[in-house]
């Protein structure tokens, strides 16, 4: 049995968790700064960093108390070292390193994106090889995994991330930041009345682009305003969401067709989207041999439990760091070598 404590502070959630064997969450203390950043319509990095320092010892104490464990019951300290905001990352990183030094525990560096994907293990163990659709506020990626801890990007966004496009459309509709959940709810009350263009629909490969869609939504609203018409917000949300889902599902379908995987993981903040979950569930009818493993809704947003899950992969692979570990704000997975894949 392996029990890890995990620290996450890459954006605007301060979180510490205790996770057993990478799949059982003993505790998951999350402090969210959402109300603070809503004042500014987006995350202000310096404000975020300040809040992290206000909450680091509180979340640490809560995580240990909730899990009913003592430092001596732990086997390692997992921490997000990237990607994310450098000032935010630093608080969790320094906190984790200090805790590791204080209790002479191994330090385990974790990629935040690997954490999002590993959270699928809280649903059911990921079956390999696996494909992961990683959709969050900062990333939109199709990731191929031959085995645990092996990540290769098949496709990614050229511009906005999916969650980012939700947040930008949300700003247009005067919805509080982040707007993903609110648009999702609006969309369910509306009809798809506008056929938004799907960027790169005809191009080969597995990449995404969402900035064209965002501009199309903005133009639609401005043109309607100029003609003195009003568009029902619910219909606009439904039409926008349909276009996002179509793009995500289309590329996922192509990847599932080209790569014979055993499971499809849906991860990241946008994985909470009910329309996307439903559309992927439908798609799976075409792929009966593939398990669909969406991350449980409560673990789709940023949290430390997912870092404990990914940290367990590293622990098993003996990937540890010294106390000089630094943040890596631009950390990402390597790209898949598609030529080599074809030859295999």
């Amino acid at each position, binding site marked *: 049995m392996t029990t890890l404590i995990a620290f996450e502070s890459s954006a605007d959630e*301060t979180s510490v968790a205790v996770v057993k064997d990478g799949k059982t969450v003993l505790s998951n*203390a*999350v*402090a*969210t*700064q959402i*109300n*603070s950043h809503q*004042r*500014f319509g987006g995350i*202000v990095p*310096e*404000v975020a*960093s*300040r*809040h*992290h*320092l*206000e*909450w*680091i*010892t*509180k*979340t*640490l*104490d*809560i995580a240990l108390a909730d899990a009913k464990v003592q*430092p001596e019951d732990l086997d390692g300290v997992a921490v997000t070292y990237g990607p994310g905001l*450098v*000032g935010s990352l*630093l*608080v969790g*990183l*320094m*906190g984790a*390193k*200090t*805790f590791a*030094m*204080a*209790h*002479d525990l191994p330090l385990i560096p974790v990629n935040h994106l690997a954490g999002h994907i590993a959270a699928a293990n809280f649903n059911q163990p990921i079956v390999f090889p696996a494909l992961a659709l990683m959709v969050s506020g900062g990333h939109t990626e199709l990731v191929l995994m031959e085995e645990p801890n092996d990540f290769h990007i098949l496709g990614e966004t050229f511009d906005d991330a999916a969650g980012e496009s939700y947040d930008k459309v949300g700003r247009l509709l005067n919805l509080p930041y982040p707007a993903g959940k609110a648009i999702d709810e609006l969309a369910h009350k509306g009809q798809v009345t506008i056929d938004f263009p799907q960027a790169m629909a005809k191009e080969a490969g597995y990449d995404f682009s969402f900035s064209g869609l965002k501009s199309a939504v903005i133009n639609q609203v401005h043109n309607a305003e100029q003609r003195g018409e009003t568009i029902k917000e619910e219909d606009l949300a439904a039409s926008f969401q349909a276009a996002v889902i179509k793009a995500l599902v289309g590329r996922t379908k192509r990847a599932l067709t080209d790569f014979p995987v055993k499971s499809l993981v849906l991860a990241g903040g946008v994985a909470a989207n009910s329309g996307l979950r439903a559309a992927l569930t439908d798609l799976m009818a075409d792929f009966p041999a593939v398990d669909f493993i969406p991350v449980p809704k409560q673990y789709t947003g940023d949290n430390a439990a997912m870092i404990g899950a990914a940290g367990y992969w590293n622990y098993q692979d003996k990937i540890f760091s*010294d*106390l*000089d570990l*630094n*943040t890596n704000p631009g950390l990402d997975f390597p790209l898949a070598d598609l030529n080599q894949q074809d030859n295999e």
Partner: protein
Amino acid sequence: MNILVIDTSNQPLLVGLGQDGQLLDTFQTDKPKNHSIDLLPAIKSLLAAQELTVQDIDQIAVAKGPGSFTGLRIGLTVGKVLADTLNKPLLAISSLQSLAKQVQLKQQSGILAAEDSTVQNPHPGKLTKDTVVLALFDARNQNVFAGAYLGDTVVLEDGHYPLEEVLDLVSQVAEPVVVVGDGLHFQDTIEEALSNQPLTILDHDQSLPTGTGLLALAQTATPVENIDDLTPSYLRKTQAELNWEQNHQDDGQDKPYVFKV
């Protein structure tokens, strides 16, 4: 009684290990953006050199600011988490006063004489016990984080001020003045404003934290009562908050900015 002292308020890094009021050993660097890499290995190696373990630390003293916001958070995160998890007292000391104290201690021991200064003073004076120590950090646009001290008396409270205001005040105190910190960034302005009093401006190297001032102040400081709530002395709100406050009432009371999910 072992005390760990940490100062990450600016580019220089200072970690020290004190025992019964004396500094046993220190680790110092002066490299940009390196605190997050160097700080913990430095603590470990200082302890190892004394054949001590983390559990042997009885107290932690950390420079709480003002200074570089990121730098301060690095030191305070380590101080807070260490004190919290080891259940040891934490002392949070002004970064400016630590530097001033360090100058005063040097002066008392006769190490710091006027000729130490690399700067040509209009009135190179002999430093006396009446010397006012002005500690300041460059906060850009002719603003400074500053504090001034005469012995243990605070002449100017730590704050974020226009440089001019600080010099105005100090010029009214008719004592010799020593400037420690980023004084050389403003050499001409300072020399002009304080042209009527004996003045010494210490350079960057003479202003590096050595840990002596921090350790001395820690001896008499009261431990932080609630470690969770300790925040750095930023002494300046973020621009985003200042802008927001211009047209909003702070409603943080009804809707906490940060809450546990």
